[in-house]
């Protein structure tokens, strides 16, 4: 077994707000602070997709990174970039678009599209200093 991790970095710019409709305004403000602004705010998200597997005998690749890039662009960036995550992306209609939930959502989009024998992990930077990984 010679497992190798390969990574592709992509980025998208989006607006969002953190809000739980089950709570009143005061509770939302207390929980989410500035991130609860009803007019939204936004980020430059940096997305790192990690695949782990053995290099294929014929190509030497774990996964063709150009293919991975095309897949991320088509399935994720095309739907998230220059969008309002709360209003424009159906997955967040009833799911708070925290970095955690965005990472889980991206994982769920990509997982069925990548061969089962490859492990997938998503790292998402919301800012240079705040980032999440899924699965943990």
């Amino acid at each position, binding site marked *: 077994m010679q497992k190798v991790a390969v990574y592709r970095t992509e*980025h998208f*710019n*989006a*607006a*969002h707000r953190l809000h739980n409709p089950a709570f009143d305004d005061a509770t939302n403000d207390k929980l989410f602070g*500035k*991130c609860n*602004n009803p*007019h*939204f*705010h*936004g*980020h*430059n998200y940096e997305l790192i997709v990690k695949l782990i597997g053995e290099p294929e005998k014929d190509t030497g690749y774990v996964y063709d990174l150009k293919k991975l890039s095309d897949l991320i662009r088509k399935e994720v960036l095309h739907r998230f*970039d*220059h*969008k*309002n995550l709360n*209003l*424009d992306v159906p997955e967040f209609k009833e799911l708070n678009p925290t970095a955690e939930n965005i990472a889980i959502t991206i994982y769920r989009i990509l997982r069925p599209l990548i061969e089962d024998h490859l492990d997938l992990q998503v790292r998402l930077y919301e*800012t*240079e200093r705040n980032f999440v990984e899924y699965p943990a």
Partner: protein
Amino acid sequence: MVYLTRLEHFNAAHKLYNPAWSKERNEAVFGDCANENWHGHNFNLYVTVKGTPDQDSGFVMDAKHLSRLIKEHVIEKLDHKNLNLDIDFLSGKICSTENLVVEIWKQLQPHLPVNITLHSLKLYETPRIYVEYFGE
């Protein structure tokens, strides 16, 4: 003369949209940035001042003091806001990075100590796109 730079950052939503134009023309000129539901960025702001180092402190200006002035007069007004909707000094203006940097100058410059000259502002909208303004 020595130049001192302080980096601050804020996260905000905006859209590029000229209300005098049709939706189609806005989309033709501004592309994805015209999304009516907004998108957003992590903005990085580099503020450069110039002056002669003080004989006693060795400072052009206390960088912590500069940071406080930028935070009070710029960051607290812009961070986690919608630039088009929430900012009085951007009202009626197209929220391009170019227009934003000029307005930030107007907000900050009057509050600097009298012996300090504001030399330049550098505003990054993404890691790959930035504007510079020298007050000219």
